[in-house]
């Protein structure tokens, strides 16, 4: 490549005062925290499926979560460790996400790329938007089912009655709809996020890349179907 160049002349925007976080550090942080979320959401979905075993099993499961490693850890100890890890991850993930997004927009300059049609590219473009929807949902979800703060929670909220709280919450169609829409959004974020994380963490082997692509798609779909089945069955009256 030669032709029209002036080698010495700086072409990019003059270096501004940047946060002392490299893109590489930010991307690696995104990948690690993102994968922690994917692991959490997947296990959470699996736990949610206890709802199909009935009220007693589900409440028992919710209670059991607080007793993991019980003699070694205090009541709800493991749960609190998880909560702290997830909160720190969330702050890092959102912070790095916004940082990378602003740097990306600045690097592209005034002429936006147009004509993106491939699924991959559209999913990549949606990452900030889908991420923010998930963030809103997470806040609502905690107010609704963990803390029971109204009006996010249903009027019937009762601490400790996980099954009844969940059913009462989903019997409100608007809440069930918001939940289902968020799950679709989450599917996109998880699918592209997992694939991106594989690339950020340096997956170059041909078989490893194939595996990552499959895992990304299948995990995303499993999370979506598993979770969505719950509000659907509540609305249909199968789970009461």
């Amino acid at each position, binding site marked *: 490549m030669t032709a*029209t160049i002036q080698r010495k002349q700086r072409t990019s925007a003059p270096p501004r005062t940047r946060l002392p976080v490299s893109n590489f550090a930010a991307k690696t942080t995104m990948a690690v925290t993102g994968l922690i979320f994917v692991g959490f959401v997947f296990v959470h979905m699996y736990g949610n499926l206890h709802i199909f075993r009935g009220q007693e099993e589900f409440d028992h499961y919710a209670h059991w979560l607080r007793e993991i490693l019980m003699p070694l850890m205090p009541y709800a100890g493991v749960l609190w460790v998880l909560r702290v890890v997830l909160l720190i991850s969330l702050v890092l993930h959102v912070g790095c996400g916004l940082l990378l997004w602003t740097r990306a927009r600045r690097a592209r300059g005034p002429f936006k790329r147009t004509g993106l049609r491939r699924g991959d590219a559209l999913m990549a473009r949606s990452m900030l938007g889908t991420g923010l929807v998930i963030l809103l949902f997470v806040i609502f979800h905690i107010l609704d089912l963990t803390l029971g703060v109204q009006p996010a929670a249903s009027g019937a909220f009762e601490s400790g009655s996980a099954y009844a709280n969940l059913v009462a919450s989903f019997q409100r169609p608007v809440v069930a709809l918001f939940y289902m829409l968020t799950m679709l959004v989450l599917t996109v974020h998880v699918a592209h996020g997992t694939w991106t994380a594989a690339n950020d963490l340096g997956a170059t082997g041909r078989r490893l890349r194939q595996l990552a692509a499959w895992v990304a798609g299948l995990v995303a779909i499993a999370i979506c179907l598993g979770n969505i089945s719950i509000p659907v069955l509540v609305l249909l009256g199968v789970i009461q």
Partner: protein
Amino acid sequence: MKLTLKVWRQESGAEEGHFEEYLLEEVGPEFSLLEALDKLNDDLVARGEEPIAFDSDCREGICGACGVTVDGTPHGPQKNTPSCRQHLRSFEDGATVQLEPFRSGAFPVVKDLAVNRSALDRVIGAGGFVSTSVGTAPDADAIPVTHEAAEWALDLAACIGCGACVAACPNGSAQLFAGSKTMHLATLPSSSKERGRRAKGITRAAEEEFGPCSVYGECAEVCPAGIPLTAIAGLNKEKLRQVLRNKDD
């Protein structure tokens, strides 16, 4: 056939640009895009107007000098094909085709369709070279290199440095370019002596000049050298390796 060309005209980097429409007649489907521009420039010069500036050299897809954005897509509608190998047969007779320079923050317009891509050179200057002395050519099998490794290194070395990957990227990232340059050298024994230093230098320069990669995958769609998306993971892998080992090799 006839075409209407909507061409970006810009006197210099310091001035504002705008689109101008030109009617292009007496061209055929076998014309390359750049031959069509040559024809238009002949017409313009004959009319006493200023010809359209654009870069090109080999016109056979090996040098990386050419590069215009055609209807929003870097290089043009034909995938993995440089501007000089795009042909008018991709367009309907009578169509309007929009020609812009490669767009990215790191590629300022020099004039009309020509941009300054020296930011790519600065990435190479930061580590895309071999500085260890390898002496004279060794005996053929003195340093074993598998056939697969050699082929893979050659595939990655095919990058012609055109910058289309940057122009295709909504993030203005040069990850595909930087990845191919880092990985082809990391794949072979003699050049892999400086893997750590190279990964560090290239990543730093690429971050100073360009944006971060979000794996849109648009770069691999336009790359005339067919560099696979694996190269973007390759750069991250090399950088991760350097961070973990903190050594020059």
